[in-house]
């Protein structure tokens, strides 16, 4: 592990510890409005100040990490699983099936997924709890984000299919299921792991983009993207630089994931 990777792991451990312990660490509930003290600068009571409604920014940032940084890996895991299934099936079978599947993947990649998300959100029941709504949003992101990874997995499996150890195993009469489980899977794992790590920041950013459009996590539940909507009014940022805190957290986490995924890609 390089020094940069070590620092990345350390930063992610700190961020995830805060996210997991948000309930214990946050000075206030994320939804509580201290209406007599809106738009406060950082102080002893509110370390990152308060927002327009008087809500503690630090508490909301902790809970936002929980929402965005815990659910993004879950969505990444889902998309990697789907990519593994589709990519392996196509790459291992080869021939017309691979061509057809990859054409399907290309078609899927060209879908305007933002509109699909908007449509799916629009037909969701209105009375679902914000937490469920968030889960559904990330689940949709996960279900839509597999296609690019599937291409990479397919290419990896195709190379492995004609590799020496696979030919040997097949010549020795190894059954297909055993071939997949014992020979192929361990060798595809680094590719999948790299794809998983690459996908996490993609989903964090996808949620952020959705929230910037007001279609991400619903109020009052905070998310990194939701908090960053304040940055739309960028002219006041020089006077209130603490509003950049969610962006800083996002940049740190995405960079850390990128560093780790690069390392994995090299290994793969």
């Amino acid at each position: 592990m390089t020094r940069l990777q070590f620092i990345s792991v350390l930063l992610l451990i700190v961020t995830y510890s805060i996210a997991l312990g948000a309930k214990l660490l946050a000075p206030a509930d994320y939804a509580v409005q201290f209406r007599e003290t809106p738009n406060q600068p950082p102080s002893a009571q509110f370390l990152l100040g308060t927002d327009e409604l008087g809500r503690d920014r630090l508490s909301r940032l902790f809970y936002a990490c929980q929402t965005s940084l815990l659910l993004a890996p879950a969505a990444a895991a889902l998309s990697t699983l789907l990519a593994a299934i589709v990519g392996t099936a196509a790459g291992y079978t080869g021939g017309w099936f691979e061509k057809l599947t990859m054409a399907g993947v290309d078609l899927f990649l060209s879908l305007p997924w933002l509109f699909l998300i908007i449509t799916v959100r629009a037909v969701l029941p209105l009375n679902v709890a914000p937490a469920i709504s968030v889960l559904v949003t990330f689940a949709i992101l996960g279900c839509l984000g597999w296609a690019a990874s599937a291409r990479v997995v397919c290419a990896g499996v195709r190379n492995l299919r004609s590799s020496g150890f696979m030919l040997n195993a097949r010549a020795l009469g190894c059954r297909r299921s055993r071939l997949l489980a014992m020979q192929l899977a361990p060798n595809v794992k680094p590719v999948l792991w790299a794809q998983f790590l690459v996908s996490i920041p993609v989903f964090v950013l996808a949620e952020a983009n959705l929230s910037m459009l007001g279609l991400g996590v619903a109020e009052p539940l905070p998310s990194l993207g939701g908090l960053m909507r304040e940055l739309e009014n960028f002219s006041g940022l020089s006077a209130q630089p603490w509003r950049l805190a969610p962006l800083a957290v996002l940049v740190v986490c995405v960079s850390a994931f990128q560093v780790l995924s690069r390392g994995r890609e090299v290994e793969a």
Partner: protein
Amino acid sequence: MKIKICLLLLALAITVPGFGQGELRFCLHADPKTFNPLLVDDDASEAVRYLTGGVLVRLNRRTQQLEPELATAWKVSPDGRRIEFTLRPGIKFSDGTPFGAEDVAFTMKSLMDPELHSPIGDGFRSANGDMHFQILPKNRIAITFPAPVAGLDKLFDQVSMMSAHSPEKERAVLGPFVVADYKPGSYVELKRNPNYWKKDSAGRHLPYLDAVRLDIQQNREIEVMRFKRGEVQLINSLDGEYYDRLQPQMRSELFDSGPSFDSEQMWFNQSPAAKIPEYKLAWFRSTQFRQAISSAINRQDLVRLVFNNHATPAIGPISPANKFWFNSKLKPHAYDQSAAIRLLVKAGFRMQGGVLHDAQGHAVEFSIITNAGNQARERMAAVIQQDLAGIGIKVGVVTLDFPSLIERMTRTFNYEACLLGLNNNGLDPNDQMAVWLSSGDNHQWNPAQKSPATAWEAEVDKLMRAQASATSATKRKALFDKVQEIAWEQQPFIYLVHKNALSAVSKEVHGAEPVALSPQTYWQIEKLRVTIERASR
């Protein structure tokens, strides 16, 4: 020597501040949908119409009284069916075609042509049948409608006269400017109308400005930055947040003209077609439930937290800015959570462990939908959420893209409560007919009813129809006051706030008197001047 004199004059021109021969710049937030003045139904087209169109009478945006323009005098008959105008003599369109009674008749015929589907024409359609025109001596014309038209003379403020004979058709105008150039997505350039008829007290031809450039800019943030850099000189409908941000450096260039005509309100879905449980429909149809919700919402906090004090708590459908039609006898809705709970208890609800339950034991909870991307509304929803939590009601907030929201509001009726705003550009209650008539499509809480669902809605129908056919302004006011009283009592719309009309006018612009009524900053465009100093930047 000549060159030296020219250079000296040029130097003087760019260093000495002075008036006249300038170009005024401001932003439109979208491309104009049309340049045909009779088809205008969007803000950008309306701006172009206001700046280029000549009208018979003009509503003074400050006094809210009609003033003569192309007509020097006008008279409405006692039965409200006939209006007679005396036209100003010697007026010419921008292309030199003379203006006369035939042009008025042509404009009105075009406006009322059912094939044209003019949104302005709808205001004149009080009954089926044709209009009749009578061209009278001494430059007069009388127009007779098949039935009385309420507020007939004020409707002409929206009607830009078109030429019956000019080959340029709608491009020939009578207003202070003409459209010189239009680049979609970029700008609309207006040049001074050489044939504009108005002169100032010194006999100088108006407008003072040579040109107006309307830059098409959707992004408000960029508009504000351009204002700060001096690239645009006016901002209409300035957001409260930007207003506060500009205030330290540009205090003298910012204007808060008090409550605007627009309102922000929430309502409950009471439609029988609503896809919600019967017990919830019963809550929403209960007057006491709606009154309790209204009492539990702290409107002052909405004003302070969401609008940075640049809003006014709303009392009813008419803003206090509407000097004539606002019912000043109505009391503001008091914020009183104890009173709200008392009302709910009276209506059969009960509090159990901090959660409100109805008589059948259902916990009271509902969702509010609003449009995604509108931060002010999302914040309002968050404030309402916490206020209603104070009386044991759990509220979910759902933001939807606008088409989905409209689909739910108007077609599927699959929602419980909605938070939205209403833009009121007109002063007259007739502009709100579709909102208040139970058969109206904009009667949002229960639209397009075949017969009124409640006695109070039947009463409102009766009053709205009566005021629409009454010709006396005093009588109409009395009838519409009663409508406002019923709305205050029944609260089908829970009116929350009226945003203040905020605007910015650069120091380079002289003669502007920003008001609440649109167009806020340039309503007397022909009298605006810009200092030439800008040219040296």
